[in-house]
């Protein structure tokens, strides 16, 4: 009996795992939506249409989580260890905290100067750091058993880098205006 709701991995027919083939995920989403999307139920009654909207919403939501390494890692810890890592960040890593401050300052300076090419260079640097961090996070998830404290810190670091990339985009918007 399909009584309990499937988790996001199960929805896509996947084992809970940090490593997700993005191409496969995206093609599965399309197959699932072919069946679930409200447009495929336009001739059904209002209950059927409401359900189709709910199912599609959940699929879109699941896809967004599984696509993003930070959200995927957080979700995986929640599913497997019932651990909420979305709140309360206490990172006791002075070196990283210092680096964090320096990167923020660098971005502030570039934003003030409105220097587009400087900003591009900075973005590339952060992207590279972000890729490295993601690889490190992947390594941690491959260890058995998981070192939960190390995972928390690693997720937080990646999250910080993603946030910085987002802020770079906002700064770019401002330069374009």
């Amino acid at each position, binding site marked *: 009996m399909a009584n309990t709701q499937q988790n996001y991995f199960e929805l896509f027919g996947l084992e809970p795992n940090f490593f997700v083939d993005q191409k*496969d995920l995206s093609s599965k989403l399309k197959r699932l939506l072919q069946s679930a999307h409200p447009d495929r139920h336009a001739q059904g*009654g209002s209950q059927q249409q409401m359900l189709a909207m709910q199912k599609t919403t959940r699929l879109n939501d699941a896809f967004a989580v599984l696509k993003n390494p930070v959200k995927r890692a957080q979700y995986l810890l929640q599913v497997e260890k019932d651990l909420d890592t979305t709140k309360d960040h206490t990172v006791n890593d002075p070196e990283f905290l210092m680096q964090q401050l320096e990167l923020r300052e660098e971005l502030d300076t570039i934003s003030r100067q409105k220097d587009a090419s400087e900003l591009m260079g900075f973005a590339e640097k952060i992207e590279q750091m972000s890729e490295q961090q993601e690889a490190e996070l992947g390594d941690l998830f491959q260890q058995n058993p998981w070192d939960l404290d190390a995972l928390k810190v690693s997720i937080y670091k990646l999250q910080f880098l993603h946030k910085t990339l987002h802020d770079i985009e906002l700064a770019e*918007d401002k330069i374009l205006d």
Partner: protein
Amino acid sequence: MALLQISEPGQSTEPHQHKLAAGIDLGTTNSLIATVRSGKAETLADANGKHTVPSVVHYVKQDGSDELEIVVGHKAKEQQAIEPGNVISSIKRLMGRGLADMDKIKEFSANKLVESESGMPGVVLDNGIEKNPVEVSSDILRTLADRAEETLGGELGGVVITVPAYFDEAQRQATKDSAQLAGLKVLRLLNEPTAAAVAYGLDTGSEGIHAIYDLGGGTFDISILRLQKGVFEVLATGGDSALGGDDFDRAIAQYLVEQAKVESDDRRAHQLAMIKARDIKEALTDTDTVDVNFLDWSGQMSRDQIEEIIAPIVDKTLLSCRRTLKDAGVKVDEVDKVVMVGGSTRVPLVREKVEKHFKVPPLTDIDPDKVVAIGAAIQANVLIGNKSDDDMLLLDVIPLSLGVETMGGLAEKIIPRNTPIPIAKAQEFTTFKDGQTAMAIHVVQGERELVEDCRSLARFELRGIPPMVAGAARIKVTYQVDADGLLQVLAEETTSGVKADITVKPSYGLSDDQITNMLQSSFSHAEGDMGARMLREQKVEAARVIEAVTAALSENGKELLSEDEYAAIQSSLEQLNQTSQGESIEAIENAIEVVEKNSNEFASRRMDASIAKALVGHEVDDI
């Protein structure tokens, strides 16, 4: 309301019945209606062979008479130069807008704008009539629908109406309201560039990354889509819902007005300048110079000259293109095709600049005026259930971020722009005063940080929060956006379960009651027949529900339900069967509701099972 009939996707329950459906492009300057006939989508012409209907309405009122004659299209447009005070054009610019938004376009409008009761701008005509934008659009829609119903020889079962992708909530809702007022069933609001992509994609079978550049009379949209095996996936969309070919005209008119030294309050002269400007722009599409006589001024204008005047407007559209590509995560050289949509893309400078920007020659194979209506007709035909074996699927996004006002007048984003729809997102808030029992929720849309720079969509209150210390309440605010891009907001205090919700109706819009009243005043019902008809309809509905649920139970009820659940549904069915023999409409209605409530979880599991099947049997293809 068919219940539990989870038909296989795309399968029509009655395969041989062809239902009438149409796609409507409700444009700022021109509108069109199209339908699929014998497998081919085509726009419908009037008796004179004209396909486009100018989005112009002439309200004719004879002196001393209450009769109002509504003239839509070419005839109304002809009257524009003769009695501009009784003719309304470019009404789409006012849809979902408040009077305060109108400053920019007031000057060149022949009509006086006032604030009406609903907060919408009202257009006051010389003959004393006042019309709001929803009513005017509804008159245009009715004219189009009449044309389709005459041509096709039957009532339309549903329509797909296109809207600019960059339309916000208020503008979408206003569009849906006007369709409702025209007595039309809206199958879907479809974004114009997505409709164009459908027309192109299905016509040519082309795949890959497409940029749809859509410059209409009053709106500009740019959408980046990925086309793959019948799936049209919008990656990002952007634009400006108040920028279009009208702005070219206005810039040229401004030049004329300056040359002829027209007084700034001479509305008539400004209106004439707009008409003249449009003629000049069109003439210079094919020739290099044109002689101009405007009031006391006469002279020559060259294409170079008007290109200089309009270049800043075109450049503004290219800036949007750049941003949207960035949002889509697509580099300019990854774009395989650029499709031109909208009459304003006929302007040579637009084509030149777009080609230079995307580095590919833009496609204009399908008439840029008709392509949107054709795409809408194809989608309408699928949604009404005429096409059965088709895999076509449109995956769209929200164009603008949806947020909520937080402390200090800041807008916090709940759903960021370009998120695929339908989608729901929740955010938790708390009280900031001890004993606080209510919380105001202000729903906003836009990209800016300050609430005052965003569009206000709705305000509502969550009341009855049990008194607690500050910060103890947990207020979960959920935004749900449906496939039309329309928003519903739910607020709930989770420790106590106190709830409030709102279907977002724009601050400048019509309430459901207002629409019902307007509809009722336009139809007259024979009271006595109504009751009998409603009872008959309820009985038919009850029979349908019983049949559907019984069939579903025998198909996989045993598999998907516990014994108790099964029994509960079974007994509510028996109850409904008995009640439906009686004469009480209300009792039947209630009994149907009970069945629906009891079987909702079952329907949900049935759908899950059917969706899960989509993953099976495809694995081989992927290797």
